[in-house]
């Protein structure tokens, strides 16, 4: 009796499928987050001609387990002067918000669940998928800003304030770059965006500059180097997580990697054709067989892993931006460029399918237009550029008489 009810629920496409998928995704996601710390340390070590963790288990593969045990048994210190409630809330918030994003990522195309019609392989298929993801992604700043505030420590506070300014600034070009992809695909549902890339080609070939803008913004949103001013050790002693220890600190770490994974998944969906294995070839798009779904999920996570590597590669290559450089890159560089890209995307969408038959292939004109825009931007930057060194608005100090 009870067993039948459970089976009914689990075989239901609207109820059981999201629950099972959620369980599977959280398992994959948590493993991936834990191992991305290991991956990061390995990449860092290789880039610096070192070995990285190689003691715990074969090839150091049990290092995340060792780290986890260490974090759990360490003293969980609560500073006397901290705002207790917010201090505890902040790491939980930053981790939960990172987890929320995976709900709408279209991990594996479509499948049939126990005789149902074709349903997308995602926990929640909602009309405003992208808006939801943007909203949840922007909420991640709360974790950092609250941590900085609640620690009641000036360095943490600086970190929190920087996080707020930085995230707010980079939300704008991020939204503009996403808008370009939305204009190209005509939907806010991520599964539709991925499916429409199966018909034409991956958006990165049509909109390379928009992808570059988005990638830069994601680096800033996730507080990764070269934009990690929020926690820079040399200036802020660790920034917002200076006062945190034990598992609370670990939650910030996991939240950061979770945010990176979700952002990478978003970029894969918007610009790299989601689960599609090869651009221009519509292979693996129609099948709803189990092996096809599993393969598509595997491909998706593979692409995310490549993105993770690029994030780490950049982190161990570039030095940190200065804060004014960071903000002027956003407001003077990426926002105008993003606006121009959206205008160009609007022109592309306005011409429409019939128009492209007369003018020529859209896959030619779209990237050409974007690169021209970038060229114009570079020339503009060249024209207004000032020599480095002494700032012109700071005249030399007059000689003392």
């Amino acid at each position: 009796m009870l067993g039948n009810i459970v089976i009914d629920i689990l075989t239901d496409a609207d109820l059981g499928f999201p629950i099972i998928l959620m369980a599977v995704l959280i398992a994959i996601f948590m493993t991936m987050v834990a191992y991305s710390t290991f991956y990061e340390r390995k990449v860092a070590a290789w880039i610096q001609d070192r070995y990285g963790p190689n003691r715990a288990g074969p090839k150091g593969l049990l290092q995340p387990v060792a780290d986890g045990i260490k974090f759990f048994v360490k003293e969980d210190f609560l500073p006397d002067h901290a705002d207790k409630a917010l201090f505890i809330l902040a790491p939980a918030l930053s981790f939960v918000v990172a987890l929320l994003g995976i709900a709408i990522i279209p991990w594996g195309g479509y499948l049939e669940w126990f005789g149902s019609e074709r349903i997308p392989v995602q926990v929640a298929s909602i009309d405003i998928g992208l808006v939801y993801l943007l909203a949840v992604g922007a909420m991640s700043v709360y974790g950092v800003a609250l941590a900085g505030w609640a620690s009641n420590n000036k360095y943490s506070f600086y970190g929190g304030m920087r996080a707020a300014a930085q995230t707010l600034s980079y939300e704008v070009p991020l939204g503009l770059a996403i808008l370009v992809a939305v204009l190209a695909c005509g939907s806010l549902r991520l599964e539709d965006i991925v499916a429409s890339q199966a018909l034409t080609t991956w958006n990165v070939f049509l909109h390379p500059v928009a992808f570059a803008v988005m990638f830069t913004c994601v680096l800033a949103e996730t507080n990764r180097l070269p934009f990690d001013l929020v926690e820079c050790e040399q200036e802020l002693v660790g920034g917002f997580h200076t006062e945190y220890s034990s598992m609370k600190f670990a939650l910030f770490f996991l939240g950061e990697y979770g945010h990176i994974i979700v952002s990478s998944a978003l970029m894969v969906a918007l610009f790299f054709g989601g689960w599609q294995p090869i651009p221009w070839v519509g292979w693996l798009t129609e099948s709803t067989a189990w092996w096809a779904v599993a393969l598509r999920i595997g491909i998706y996570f593979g692409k995310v892993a490549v993105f993770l590597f690029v994030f780490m590669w950049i982190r161990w290559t570039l030095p940190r931006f200065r804060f004014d450089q960071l903000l002027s890159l956003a407001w003077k560089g990426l926002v105008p460029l993003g606006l121009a890209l959206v205008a160009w995307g609007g022109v592309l969408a306005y011409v429409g399918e019939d128009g492209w038959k007369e003018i020529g292939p859209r896959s030619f004109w779209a990237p050409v237009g974007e690169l021209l825009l970038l060229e114009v931007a570079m020339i503009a930057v060249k024209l207004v550029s000032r020599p480095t060194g002494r700032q012109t608005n700071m005249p030399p100090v007059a000689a003392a008489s």
Partner: protein
Amino acid sequence: MADWKETDIVEIEGPRLGAGQMMYVPEILAGMKITLKHLFRKRKGRDRFVVQYPEERREAPETYEHGQKAGLPLRSDGYRGLHRLNRDERGNVACVACFMCSTACPANCIHIEGGEAPWDYREKYPVKFEIDELRCIYCGMCEEACPVNAIELAYEYDLVGTSREEMVLDKEALLAVYDRTKGRKPRLNPPITGYPDTGHRQA
């Protein structure tokens, strides 16, 4: 300050960046190419710099020709590691309990109790000789102060313990360090006193 003239102020023009440099992208890619090259460097490249510590060690200088062992950088000749208390030619502790080292010690980590030597050829010897290795700053002033070169800093550097008490080495422990390390001359630190030493310097 009052001597400053307008001509003393020199305006320096920084290098003017090109458009590519202002847009960051080409320079970033150039940097990423370098790091990628290092990333795919195989074991051989890493082994030039990395010592897999518990299995591999930077050995004392004289055991290898300099730089020969897989390019491992060797420890410097003047390395100041764990203390040792030398023995005289009859195998007894060479220290004459003169308190020069504990007087010279800036960290106050040497504690000596002197007493009459039980041997007929010596007058004084340390009944107790303790060094708190956690307080020690390994400056080497004790060995410079010692008139008979009884205390020296050996090359051992892996000193571990589970309690503070354990890290206070007594006379037996320091003599044991000597027994372990006597095959190697610890430092190229010439005796600065004119006293006859125990002969270990010339070893």
